[in-house]
């Protein structure tokens, strides 16, 4: 299946209650598939094409505030428009799923794939001290599985979750195993606006605190939650790290290309491994720090001007050199280029 369509089908099967979206290349197939499939007949899931990405994320806020599984998807320029809503959703501690099928920027940029929204996804993007849980699929299969995982984490922590995909994964056709249909939620959460119960206080969904003392308490609670997320939810994979003398760090589709470079290097007798973060927040800092005790240098490979490399450097904390190789503007690095960069920047560097 095509990545975007598989993800849309996964949303239905994950028991989503509502999808609100707005067309943008290269992810329009998500809403097209949902409109074609008309899941209201299959599961009761609502699908609505909003007037803007801003409206779509605020519709997600409304539905999430009712304790429903709500999601939206977009691509980079549209995700920028959603940042206001995401900050409010994080502040009001609502669960939701947002998919960013990244294209190259800045501005309108190009519709070709990129990883240039790493900072926006992982460091903030919207205003205020908040975090998104960020899942980075490398395959169509993972983008399907992360829909279900994303909703699970969103409700576990009452926090927005982002699937940070890219135009390659969204557009490519790959074999995929779809999970069985999950039921829609049948839970009346006490924090959800479902209509006031006679014996209870009314429920208010808000991110507003007029008193600084109260706002600080909210921030402290959020930070405590983020520490829990960091403790429990780090996910990553390693390849060829057992005997590695050098290490690649790469995520998403770029990790697949880098893995090819790793195999080519090993065929030449260069002992290099690959660490692929599956969660970008929380970041696998401890795993990278551990490997830094073993390897002589790390090359971070990204389809941007060097963003995740900053988190790799923080994790390594100066133990070994951390260098960067990347292509951007919609260009995709080849395994040859990556191998050459390893030889020049790390082995010969």
């Amino acid at each position, binding site marked *: 299946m095509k990545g975007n369509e598989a993800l849309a089908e996964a949303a239905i099967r994950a028991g989503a209650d509502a999808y609100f979206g707005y067309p943008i290349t290269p992810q329009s197939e998500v809403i097209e598939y949902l409109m074609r499939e008309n899941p209201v007949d299959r599961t009761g899931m609502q699908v609505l094409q909003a007037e803007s990405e801003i409206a*779509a994320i*605020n*519709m997600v806020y409304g539905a999430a505030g*009712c304790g429903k599984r709500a999601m939206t998807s977009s691509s980079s320029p549209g995700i920028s428009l959603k940042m206001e809503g995401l900050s*409010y959703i994080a502040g009001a501690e609502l669960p939701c799923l947002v998919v960013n099928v990244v294209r190259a920027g800045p501005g309108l940029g190009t519709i070709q794939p990129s990883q240039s929204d790493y900072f926006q996804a992982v460091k903030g993007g919207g205003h205020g001290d908040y975090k998104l849980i960020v899942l980075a699929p490398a395959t169509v299969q993972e983008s399907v599985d992360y829909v279900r995982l994303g909703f699970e984490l969103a409700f576990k922590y009452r926090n927005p979750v982002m699937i940070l995909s890219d135009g390659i994964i969204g557009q490519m056709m790959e074999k995929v195993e779809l999970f069985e249909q999950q039921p829609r939620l049948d839970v009346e959460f006490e924090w959800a*606006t479902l209509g006031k119960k006679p014996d209870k206080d009314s429920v*208010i969904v808000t*991110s507003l605190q*007029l008193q600084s003392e109260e706002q600080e308490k909210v921030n402290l609670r959020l930070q405590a939650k983020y520490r829990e997320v960091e403790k429990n939810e780090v996910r990553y994979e390693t390849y060829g790290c057992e005997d590695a003398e050098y290490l690649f760090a790469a995520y998403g589709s770029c990790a697949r290309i880098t893995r090819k470079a790793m195999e080519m290097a090993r065929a030449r007798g260069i002992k290099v491994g690959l660490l692929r973060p599956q969660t970008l927040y929380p970041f696998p800092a401890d795993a990278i720090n551990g490997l830094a005790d073993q390897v002589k240098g790390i090359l971070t490979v990204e389809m941007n001007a060097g963003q995740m490399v900053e988190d790799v450097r923080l994790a390594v904390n100066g133990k070994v050199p951390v260098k960067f190789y990347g292509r951007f503007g919609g260009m995709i690095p080849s395994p040859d280029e990556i191998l050459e960069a390893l030889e020049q920047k790390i082995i010969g560097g």
Partner: protein
Amino acid sequence: MITPENLVYEKTSVMTDRVLHYCPGCGHGTAHRILAEVIGELGIQGDTIGVAPVGCSVLAYYYFDVDMQEAAHGRAPAVATGIKRVLPEKYVFTYQGDGDLAAIGTAETIHACNRGESILIVFINNGIYGMTGGQMAPTTLAGMKSSTSPRGRDVATMGNPLKITELVAQLPGTYFVTRQAVHAPANVRKAKRALKKALEYQKLNKGTCFVEIVSNCPSGWKMTPVQSNKWMEENMFPFYPLGDIKVPPEKQ
């Protein structure tokens, strides 16, 4: 002494006991009260979900004893859409001021009305940004002074006041559109009847109901409450005439 026999007025239980933060003489308190009374009279307190805006009524959820969500500035109709789509059996309303509804939230307002979302939009129009200290709003009258139009609104450079209520009445998605006021007892009764009709219509799922309440802002207009009501009658009502703008076809 108040006894059940001589009791002429009782605060509706749909309003909490919190002291309103609104300025003396402001119309928000009355507008809140009649909307809360209507919710109580219809017996839908447990089936109503409100959406508060950003602006003077940002804390509306302190006063309405119903489940509520606080929206980002201008986004209340989108938030209400999200609520109504997943809880179609509930009564959903937004309560918004002119800056929220007719400036930053124009797109959300127009499109929710155009889709005919089965929600009630309560629009308080006092021609000014009250919460931020009296800046020009989209509905500020031509020549009217505000902190960002200190020499009066110059329509040549600042644009004309926006009659968004007439605008949404043009859309097939709206079912009932009316403009009311709450500065005098007769108007309060009419406005309350309009709100009651609007919520009753919501059961029919025939489209968006839109109730504008032209109101005063003594603090922002720099007038006493009495002066502000007089000024409103003499200046606001001629430009924003009261009355029904669109009534349901079967009621015509």
